[in-house]
């Protein structure tokens, strides 16, 4: 909570009103790093030692993949609660297809993207064609996948060749390859949202689906695309899981990755109500969570206290954003008395 103090000062005084939300989140990240570093230093450690930096960056990649994908659907005012299951399934598909043969790696990657994309398409179809609330549709898909995984795979399955395991473990200096891949994909996603038509349409659909449709946007196609992209990013996360574990693991879904991803997206300043935010903020959100986790780890905070602090940090951060930028709990009012709405 106090970790976010620098941002509060800024918002409280409101001098730099035009500072963008994303810039503020990166400021908050710097603040968290500084405070975390200070706290660890007082404890007699060094947050910026190589081992800790590696730990920090390694933590960003998995949540990063999931959160980037989640950003697309949340921008469209949708949600995906099935990503954890998709990632678990993808890790199994990858590991069983590779089956120890380095030659199978391209096929496995293609198959993972195909399977996860299809699941995303199913999610999108439930939401757009059948009109099922995304919370329910993706919860249902998650349950379906959970049943399949539990029935089909009693334990770890498949074998990931050593070459592909490099994806999980290799580092360039202190930067893990997986983090580099995550950042490259994040950059691609930023470009996609800023420079392509579908990207712009995602903001429009999330802002107001009716207005978007009346402006001639095929809203259903856009939502479908967002869901497919989200699930494919979850597929990439599954590939990373497979590379790290060396086998496919159905148990991966028990970690509730989807809630982590949503927390990171929201921490990154993307509105849960859609239409505002972006992937750049999400990456910062992921980084903040990773820094916090590393700080807790280095300082050997009780793992359960970590949950308490995490919950408090997420609520506090979102409360601060809410104070700063908007009163959009329901919809953007068009005609308002200046004094009444901030």
């Amino acid at each position: 909570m106090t970790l976010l103090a620098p941002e509060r000062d800024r918002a409280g005084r409101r001098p730099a009103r035009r500072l963008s939300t994303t810039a503020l989140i990166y400021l908050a990240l710097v603040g968290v790093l500084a405070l975390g570093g200070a706290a660890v230093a007082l404890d007699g450690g060094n947050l910026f030692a190589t081992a800790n930096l590696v730990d920090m960056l390694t933590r960003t990649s998995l949540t990063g993949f999931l959160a980037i994908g989640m950003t697309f659907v949340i921008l469209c005012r949708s949600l995906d609660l099935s990503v954890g299951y998709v990632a678990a399934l993808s890790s199994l598909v990858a590991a069983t297809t590779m089956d120890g043969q380095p030659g199978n790696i391209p096929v496995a990657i293609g198959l993972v993207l195909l399977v996860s994309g299809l699941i995303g398409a199913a999610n999108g179809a439930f939401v757009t064609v059948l009109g099922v609330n995304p919370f329910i549709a993706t919860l249902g898909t998650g349950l379906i996948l959970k049943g399949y995984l539990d029935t089909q795979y009693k334990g770890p399955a498949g074998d990931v060749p050593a070459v592909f395991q490099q994806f999980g473990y290799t580092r360039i200096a202190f930067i893990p390859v997986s983090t580099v891949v995550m950042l490259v994909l994040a950059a691609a996603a930023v470009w996609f949202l800023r420079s392509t038509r579908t990207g712009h349409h995602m903001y429009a659909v999330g802002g107001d689906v009716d207005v978007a449709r009346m402006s001639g946007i095929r809203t259903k196609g856009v939502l479908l695309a967002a869901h497919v992209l989200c699930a494919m990013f979850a597929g990439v996360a599954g590939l990373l899981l497979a590379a790290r574990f060396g086998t496919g693991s159905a148990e991966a879904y028990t970690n509730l990755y989807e809630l982590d991803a949503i927390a990171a997206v929201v921490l990154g300043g993307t509105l849960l109500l859609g239409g505002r935010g972006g992937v750049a903020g999400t990456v910062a959100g992921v980084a903040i969570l990773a820094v916090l986790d590393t700080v807790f780890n280095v300082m050997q905070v009780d793992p359960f206290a970590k949950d308490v602090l995490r919950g408090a940090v997420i609520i506090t951060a979102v409360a601060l954003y809410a104070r700063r930028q908007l009163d959009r709990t329901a919809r953007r009012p068009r005609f308002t008395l200046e004094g009444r709405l901030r």
Partner: protein
Amino acid sequence: MTRFRDLIAKAANPTGTVFILLALILVGVFAMNPGFFEGPSLMAFLKQAAPLVILAAGQYFVIVSGNFDLSVGALVGAQVVIAARLIDGEESRTLPVILAMIAFGVAVGLVNGLITTVLKVQSFITTLGMLLVLYGAIRLWTGGAPTGSLSEAFRQAGRFGIEDVPVLGQVPWALLIMIGLGAGAIALMRSRFGRVLMASGDNERAAALSGARVDAARTAAFVLSGLSATVAGILIGGYAGVSAQVGDGLEFTVITAVVLGGVVLGGGRGTVLAAMAGALTIEALFTLFNQMALPATLRPTVQGAILIAAVAYAARQRARPAPAPATPTATATATPS
């Protein structure tokens, strides 16, 4: 004839769907095991279903006012652990501890409600944060594993009932509590408070402009949800014993139940009776799975498929009577907030 048509209309309305689904599942259960409708086994079923039904009523208040409560599962777990730790087997402490639990449930609901309404944090995030806080705090407090034990008096509500009733055998206290609270919830929704709550979920701005105290009503809804989790915790603790895991995943089951009852996420639509019937339907479904000796691992799959199908069916029904105005509502309300 008109009566018949009325009946059809009622059945086709999404709120009615859940009752048909419940009837179908019960017929299925009966086909597999004709003994199910004999008094004792029916009572046992209702005793087991009572906590979920009560939770569904609590969650209904929150959902119909346009919010979510994801913290109920963690709260149920927390309440069971608190009860065991504070009572620690002493009969005399039962009542004070129950009062403390009620206070705790109200406090959690109040915090959820105030953060959502005053600080304008979306309830999804508020209650997700609360879930994490409760989950961590309770394990921190107990050092990982729950300690202490419940008293006999505490277990009464969840496990026992009025014995030796003709035909029925034991009439569980849980069933009576469920009926009492269910009736209370229905009465509450018919009162002024209920209308304000419904209006807040339907159109917050219109409700506020017409003088309703939207924030107060929504906060009260969270408090009611916290209370329902407390009662459910007392029943589940008595029935199933002490474990910090009892509540894990319960929030999703409850939301599933409420939505199955035709209540629209985003608020403003659906009845509390149907929400409770949704909970009963889920429990009946689990019973059916048991009867069919379905592999336990396959249950989530069937549950998920039925969930999507039922909600898709309800969405179709909602869109049909007046296609033009209803379609935008169907998509526009399809949002968690």
